């Protein structure tokens, strides 16, 4: 049985030590701020990007990795692996998945490549990437890994709050949350990633209420195996969230992650997210039946 390489993109927000431990291959997107171009998490760190964001003269923009970049990565892996699973940010938020598909088709035949649209982002796909990587290390074949990855994506729930809807709106990533834009009152809305797009959950008006609402939403899940707490800049709520969920998920199974510059460019400062992974089994299809 051959070896399977695991590829994702820089928006997965998986902490560096886990990327190294599980031998995950990360393709960066690019972010443009004030006329400069950076490779996400390669030539600019989340911390540096958030330092610059509030002072940016114009809203930053982002772009997907080129097809060529994916070709190079896939070709490079062909010497050491027999197959690739390539898991990417929702095709409704970015063209990354399309680039990966094109790259797969143009190098067709060299090796089997499963390109998966996570219909999510950040650790919303990160947990599935980790699951795939664990299975790859355990020597599972591509079909098994692909199936498990899709199950893991189904078992992952992403909820977040933004300080302002302005970044999502300007960046065109607002999705169905567009219907809550236009309030003359302050909103700290609770949003979710659903079917790969941003959807509104509640028009919360203060950060503490939004945080409490997110915690309540996560607590409603029947099981929690792992949690990720995501931030763009302000990490002051992380401890509060961790504390409030500690009885549902042991601390050592929680990750605190900085959101990548590419995602942060569309979310803005002060974003706080919680991602819950329900666990490896039973398969979602059976759970629903």
């Amino acid at each position, binding site marked *: 049985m051959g070896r399977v390489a695991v590829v994702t993109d820089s928006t997965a927000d998986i902490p560096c030590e886990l990327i190294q431990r599980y031998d995950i291959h990360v393709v960066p997107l690019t972010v443009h701020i004030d006329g400069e171009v950076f490779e996400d998490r390669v030539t600019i760190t989340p911390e540096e990007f958030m330092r610059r964001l509030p002072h940016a003269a114009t809203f930053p923009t982002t772009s997907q990795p080129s097809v060529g970049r994916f070709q190079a990565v896939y070709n490079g892996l062909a010497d050491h692996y027999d197959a690739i699973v390539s898991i990417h940010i929702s095709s409704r938020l970015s063209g990354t998945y399309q680039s990966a598909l094109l790259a797969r088709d143009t190098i067709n035949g060299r090796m089997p490549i499963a390109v998966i649209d996570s219909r999510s982002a950040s650790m919303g796909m990160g947990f599935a990437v980790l699951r795939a990587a664990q299975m790859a290390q355990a020597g599972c074949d591509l079909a098994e890994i692909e199936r498990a990855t899709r199950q893991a994506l189904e078992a992952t729930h992403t909820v977040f709050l933004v300080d302002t809807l302005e970044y999502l709106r300007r960046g065109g990533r607002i999705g169905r949350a567009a219907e809550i834009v*236009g*309030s*003359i009152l*302050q909103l700290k809305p609770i949003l979710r990633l659903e079917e790969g797009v941003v*959807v509104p959950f*509640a028009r919360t008006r*203060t950060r503490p*209420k939004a945080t409490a609402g997110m915690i309540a939403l996560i607590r409603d899940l029947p099981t929690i195996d792992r949690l990720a707490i995501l931030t763009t800049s302000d990490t002051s709520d992380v401890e509060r969230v961790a504390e409030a969920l500690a009885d549902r998920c042991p601390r050592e199974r929680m990750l605190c992650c900085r959101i990548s510059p590419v995602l942060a460019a569309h979310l803005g400062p002060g974003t706080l997210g919680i991602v819950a992974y329900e666990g490896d089994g039973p398969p979602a299809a059976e759970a629903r039946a």
Partner: protein
Amino acid sequence: MTGEGAARAASHAGTVDTERTRWWSGRTLLQALETAAAHLEAHVAAINALNVFPVPDGDTGTNLFLTLQAAVREARRHALDGQPPRADEVLAGAAHGALMGARGNSGVILYQILAGMAEGSQGASHLDGHVLAASLRRGADLAYRAVGQPVEGTMLTVIREAAEAAETAAVRDGSVASVLAAALDRANDAVARTPALLDILQQAGVVDAGGQGLAILLGGLQRFVDGATLAISPADAPPAAAMAFLDHLDELHGTAEFGYCINFLLSGDALPVEEVRRRIAELGTSTVAVGDATMLKIHVHSDHPGAVLELALTYGELHQVRIDNMTAQTRALVEARAADHPPVPAAPTAAPTSIGLVAVASGAGLTAALRGMGADAVVPGGPTVNPSTAEILRAVEALPHREVILLPNDPNVIPTARQVERLTERIVRVVPSRSVPEGISALAAFNFDAGLDENVAAMTEALSMVRSLALTRATRAAEIDGVRVRAGQYIGLVDGRLRAAGDDAVSVTLAVVTQAQPEQAELLTLFVGEPAAPDLAGSVAAAIGEAYPHLTIEVAAGDQPHYDLIMALE
């Protein structure tokens, strides 16, 4: 008020016919009710002034008058349909008019009383003292039963005592005049004793406004007995505010409607409302059947209007039958629309499963704020102008949603909102918000993914997560809960209670904020009202920001009448 003068001019001085004193036919009863309404109208301002708190608020006199006016108009319309009306028919019509026209808490209680009187008089072609006593008793019983926790020292006490006196008097003398006189006497007594029963009235130095209004209504009937005949303005407004909303159903017709649109009133003694609705619905589409066991307004689309009418005839009598050919209308409508607008994609229609949100507020700014927070419709109305049941009902019926949550945003609008629950085929739930800040807090808790019950629970819970503060001017001098205030001074309210008074708007505002536990809050929203001075919001925001630097202060136009500021602290 010229009402009294006009009243006197209209009365036939000295000509007291026996029908006025012994028993009333339906026609006489109608005149008596109309005289009582006109008499009440002359006292509206005096009753409005009997507010517990010296704030522009819950105008009981206005609400009682408008409700009684709707009752009289509907009773008159009802009476015009047939032969000389019977007394029980007049009361049934009045009850129905009051149901749809009810405004405010007092209006809803008046409706309950009239509904009880209609029940209590059933079978009586004339109203004599015995029937009057029995119907007052039934009215009192129904009013008590309708109120969750009856409070003594209110309209309830007055109607109960009046009914008791009427029953006693009827044993001795069965004339309308003596029974009414006894009821009125006791009602006046009971009104005078309301402050002894309700501490807040004692503190404010007023009698209960609703109770006083009821006694004045009985006093108007007494004036009729004494020979006066007063008139209220004719129903120039659309035919009885009642059910007027149905006249707008056409607006809801799509461009793909064919067949006939059939509208009529069905009257009967004990109409099986659900059964009628179900059987009519079997014959067509877009069925709406609204009303009660004595009268239903029915709207249905069908290819066979004759079959619909024949079915209805098996239950009772038909009135005001109107049948329109929608195929022809649709053709005309499509042509007219095409001329007006180039074809555009249809407005995004709400999924039939989604929940509609209807709020009540006055002021362009508050309306915009509520809409921005997700309200699909905002019914004009607020502390001083309470919307009628029919007005709220119409807003509900105009929405595409099958399920609707109502936010009354005023304690006095909650009872009318609750009436709407049983008047429509939509599933309507009331989240009893007592202020616009509470309404906004509830809207913020609305969850896009949850169902009706879960949302009602979450939104109701959210009502207590905000403190509602207000700055206005005292309408009179008062001393309540240790706060002394002169007429015209600024007063500050916390959750509807008087908490501060003074001549300086900024310090009164700061005082109420201080009393509302600002250290536990993080956001203060100021809605600037019509009477506010241009620099008020800025000065208040600066003073509060200095005193409580941790608070985020948000200033928005509210444009509400009477209140300089309405504030949400959360």
